């Protein structure tokens, strides 16, 4: 390896400093002396620096791309550090990790009622969406998802990221995608499995949430994991404007609730979204968005009862069209959120489902609706608002209000009279929930949260829930979206 020492600029500077000294007054002489001293110091520092760098370069590998680009002033004589970074151990830099690795550990203690058929009345459960009924539904101590995040630039054109959720005897691929980095003109392309950009909370993983669980709206829309994930492609474009404006579209397999697995060419789900955002003065910032998601499902199952109260199996097949609107507003004195800040967020959705409902008598109990099928149509809506105030670097407090409207199902005349409309998924109900949380962060990497919730997801039951939750992260410092 060669370390070229750029003598020339210093020589020139020295000459420039010395030449006027020939005709200088004593006062100027003193100044020139000081300058020479300073140059000497800088010179010595630089030699020490190069020695240090040499030692460092020998002790580490990786990050050659960045180093090579900028180690030298003009970026063209950069072979020195680039070549130096080819051997040796990895003990050095966290940023030299290739890929960046981080591990999120989460777990909780939860106290709540023992409700055997826990769910959100008036909404179809997202079957198969959770693991043994879901972490959020376990009473007592439980371990949440352990998330392993791996990310890196693939080459100058692509970046890749995978987020694996480790659950007992199971590894779930939560996200695994590639992203173009160099398309330019504001264009972005992502492919693989990724959290859809619809809504605000949808892209956030549970460890980024301000509450221990997802809002009821997200649980009703996408299941307890509180997110819609696409297996497909996303294209988006950022406008070259001062106000942030982003438009995007996604196509995907659409196997996730409210869609279902399919065996067809083409795409099973499509989404479009638009985001706008900006600052108001130095202390406030905001983002607003609208999104539309279309999915289709075949054979979505839930328990329904017939007029006589006998249990049967309901199956819905059809389309779901979901509109989402979201708004986030943040305030921090002087725009410096470290010590004090406030965050308000709210989201609203409306979902229209249209298709057919079939009834089957699984237990052969003589169910009155057995074998019948007719049209099914329903409009549901809901949302949440929340505010979180950080009062010191460590303490935060927040309140969230959830409300849903299940709407009444419109079911064809041949089936409707045979059904009991008080069945959980067919019932007309307004689930609500109040949640209060307080959390403490020792550092950017560890947080303990206490949450109280008054959950009226089911009629006639007020479930008072207490959750004590921890979230810690190991490894690379994450960068989160707004």
């Amino acid at each position: 390896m060669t370390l070229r020492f750029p003598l020339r600029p210093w020589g020139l500077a020295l000459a420039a400093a010395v030449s006027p000294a020939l005709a200088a007054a004593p006062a100027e002489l003193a100044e020139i002396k000081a300058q020479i001293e300073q140059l000497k110091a800088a010179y010595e520092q630089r030699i020490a620096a190069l020695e240090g760098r040499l030692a460092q370069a020998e002790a580490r590998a990786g990050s050659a791309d960045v180093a090579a680009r900028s180690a030298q002033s003009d970026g063209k004589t950069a072979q020195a550090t680039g070549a130096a970074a080819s051997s040796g151990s990895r003990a050095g830099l966290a940023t030299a990790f290739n890929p960046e690795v981080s591990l999120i550990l989460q777990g909780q203690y939860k106290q709540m009622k023992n409700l055997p058929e826990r769910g959100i009345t008036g909404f179809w459960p997202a079957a198969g969406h959770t693991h043994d009924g879901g972490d959020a539904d376990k009473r007592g101590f439980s371990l949440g998802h352990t998330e392993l995040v791996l990310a890196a630039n693939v080459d100058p054109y692509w970046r890749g990221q995978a987020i694996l959720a480790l659950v007992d005897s199971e590894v779930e691929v939560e996200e695994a995608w590639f992203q173009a980095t160099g398309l330019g003109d504001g264009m972005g392309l992502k492919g693989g499995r990724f959290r859809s950009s619809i809504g605000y909370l949808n892209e956030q993983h549970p460890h980024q949430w301000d509450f221990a669980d997802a809002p009821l709206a997200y649980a009703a829309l996408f299941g307890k994991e509180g997110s819609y994930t696409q297996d497909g492609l996303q294209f988006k474009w950022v406008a070259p404007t001062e106000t942030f404006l982003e438009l995007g579209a996604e196509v995907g397999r659409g196997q996730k609730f409210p869609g279902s697995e399919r065996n067809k060419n083409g795409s099973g789900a499509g989404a479009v979204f638009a985001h706008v955002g900006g600052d108001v003065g130095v202390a406030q910032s905001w983002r607003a968005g609208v999104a539309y998601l279309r999915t289709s499902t075949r054979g979505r199952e839930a328990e329904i009862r017939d007029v006589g109260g006998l249990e049967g199996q309901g199956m819905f097949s059809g389309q779901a069209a979901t509109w989402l609107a979201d708004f986030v507003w943040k305030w921090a004195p002087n725009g410096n959120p470290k010590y004090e800040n406030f965050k308000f967020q709210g989201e609203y959705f409306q979902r229209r489902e249209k298709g057919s409902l079939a009834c089957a008598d699984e237990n052969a109990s003589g169910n009155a609706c057995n074998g019948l099928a007719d049209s099914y149509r329903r409009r549901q809506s809901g949302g949440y608002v929340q505010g979180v105030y950080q009062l010191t670097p460590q303490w935060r407090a927040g309140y969230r209000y959830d409300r849903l409207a299940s709407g009444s199902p419109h079911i064809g005349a041949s089936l409707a009279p045979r059904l009991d409309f008080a069945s959980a998924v067919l019932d007309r109900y307004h689930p609500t929930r109040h949640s209060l949380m307080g959390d403490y962060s020792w550092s950017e990497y560890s947080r303990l949260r206490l949450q109280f919730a008054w959950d009226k997801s089911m009629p006639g039951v007020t479930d008072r829930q207490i959750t004590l939750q921890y979230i810690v992260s190991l490894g690379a410092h994450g960068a989160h979206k707004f």
Partner: protein
Amino acid sequence: MKSSILMIASAVLTALFSTTLRADVAVFATVPEWGALAKEIGGDKVTVYNATHGLQDPHRIDARPSLIAQARRAQLVVATGAELEVGWLPVVLRESGNGRIQLGQPGYLEAARQVVLREVPPVLDRAHGDIHAAGNPHIQTDPRNYLKVGEALAGRLAEIDPANQAHYRAGYSNFAGRWRSAIGRWEREAAGLRGVPVLVQHQAFPYLCDWLGLKEVGSLEAKPGVEPTRSHLAELLARQGGQPAKMVIRAAYQADGPSRWFSQRAGIPAVALPFTVGGTPAAGDLFSLFDQTVQRLVEANR
């Protein structure tokens, strides 16, 4: 559905027409000092956007939509690096859809790569606090570092805008000349600070201490990035008997509570340094930034 398509189309059109064509190089500086340096070198050939101002902690801001919109239009991003902006800049760069300013492109420059970093941790373990693997990122408190960063910056500007190459070279040598004589002046004014023991609120001043020969005898934060605790402050206070610090210094954007608490009990001045351009009203540019830094330290040492 039809009306929503119309809505989106009109939004796109508005966006396109409000774009102004600029001949200047659009510089996105993560912190005001690099913005000011770009202005010193580029003059009227650059337009500078500073992602943070003097009272914001650049380590702790959000990846706000406004930053993404600005990064989308930038031709050159000047960051400090060394993980100072790690919590937001990677997101801003990725979300901007701007290929020119990505890592490894001419449009991305890290100042910390141009200088020798201090306090490179021998052991990477967060039990030692929020340490930065590459070293301490607060390089802007030593004026000598601006010469190296400025040289690199001028080179990048020339690479991005070759038509004005000569302008950037001249801008840099003009700045470097004035800067060197200013450094001489500051060093003379601050000569009395050599060997003076100081306490720092956060480990933000190794470069300043090295430059002026101040002796850092402790930090109010027991671990970097972890808020000062009462017990650690009490311990430092007890140490004042044997090894008295003459002042406690902090960056203007840090809460004044801990250093005020300490200053009152120890009977030594608490000094808020501008830390960057705009940190105090008087620190309006790079020169006045160091004028005021030196002045405040000298006054506290009287």
